[in-house]
């Protein structure tokens, strides 16, 4: 496995950090074609965006959707509960257009 990140599927637009990664690092990712400039600290186990993800866009991990972006997420950002949301089990949105 890559020493910094795990990318599970080629359709994924996020990767998982397998060490604490600091803002300002530039990561070389095998078979990815270009380097990834890290915009924010990414703690062990947390996700980083591999591409720009527009607000409302699908966040992909395991080759499947894990939710939707609630903000524009630039490439190299920390992707977590502050900028993505679940689309399932949302009783709070019942009756509203989602």
């Amino acid at each position: 496995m890559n020493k910094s990140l795990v990318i599970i599927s080629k359709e994924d637009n996020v990767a998982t950090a397998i060490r604490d990664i600091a803002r300002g690092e530039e990561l070389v990712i095998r078979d990815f074609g270009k380097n990834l400039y890290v915009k924010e600290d990414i703690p062990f186990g947390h996700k980083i965006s591999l591409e720009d993800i527009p607000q409302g866009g699908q966040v992909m991990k395991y080759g499947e959707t894990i939710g939707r972006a609630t903000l524009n997420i630039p490439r190299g950002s920390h992707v977590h509960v502050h900028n993505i949301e679940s689309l399932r089990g949302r009783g709070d949105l019942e009756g509203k257009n989602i």
Partner: protein
Amino acid sequence: MKLHGYLRNNGSIGIRNHLLVIPASVCAATVASRIASQVQGAVALPNQHGCAQIKPDLDITFRTLSGFGKNGNAGAVLVIGLGCESLEAEDLARDISSTGKEVEYLVIQRSGGTLSAQEKGLRIARKLSQHISQFKREPIHISQMILGLECGGSDTTSGLAANPAQGYVSDKLVSHHGTSILSETTELIGAEHLLARRAVSAEVGEHLLDIVRKCEDKAKRLGVDLRGSQPTPGNIAGGLSTIEEKSLGCIHKGGSMPLSGVLEYGESPKGKGLFMMDTPGQDIESITGMVAGGAQLILFTTGRGTPTGCPLAPVIKITGNPGTYTLMEENIDINAGTIVQGTESIEDVGERIWDEMIEVIKGRLTKAEALCHREFGIYKLTSTF
């Protein structure tokens, strides 16, 4: 691979030989635990239910308690009732005795109160304890094992490392014609389509989708965002952002074998292979359901670390997070953190879990057993009345 276990009269096998003391209701739980605490090899279930429950919940409680009594890991059973509860001790004892095991019961109100019931119970338990001590381990086959698959206190390493390694073990057991039970319906939300594709029939696939739909609908009917409870704060601190992400990691513990069937909470699998049991994502209730369904052994992956055990079945704890293993080695049996560190493959760790499982089947205690972790909780649909 030579394995030895306890052959029960109904054809099931046990890898432990406990005297199980079951309180029919919460009102009998103190007397049951006091009796078990004074008798060699006895364990009591800390039952919180059994009275003033609606019929569907009472049925779940009965099925769960009865399933524990019938589980191959119980050598003999003593049921304690108060006497006026909805779930009658005599009915429970009769149902469990269909296995051919020694099963006795007593009722506190008819015995004269706490002290009289304890004395009577201790005399019965002493006799049962001596009785089961004569049982010897005999040759068993791995195909007779029912393995429960659990994950809890997950983080992102669970989906990347520990769950795939557990899935490897499940696949290996199923390929040896054994049985494994996947659980936690909540943690299929967002990943159910992947598991449904593996169903042996359209009917099984539809059944699977139906239990997930009902689980999600329940959250919607309550008008709540599931994110208030799933993922948990610990899951989120560990990097999991949504229930979909958690679920996509969770299903890896079910390996890649075809899905043979879908079970109700506490229901025993009919036939061999991989089954899905409809349990909640709450670990203790999920494990309790699988053991009630006959699981003699639980594999439990945990990214954040948890001490959980079970009164009747050994629980093998596995973490995919190397930091958690360092921090909580006293509770964790297997370090699968080597996968994210790049020093071992998923298959390597799967083989280590398999070897550990074989030793535990033979009788070696897990850390949760050695520390007497005996968590127990029965799922319920609604409040008591």
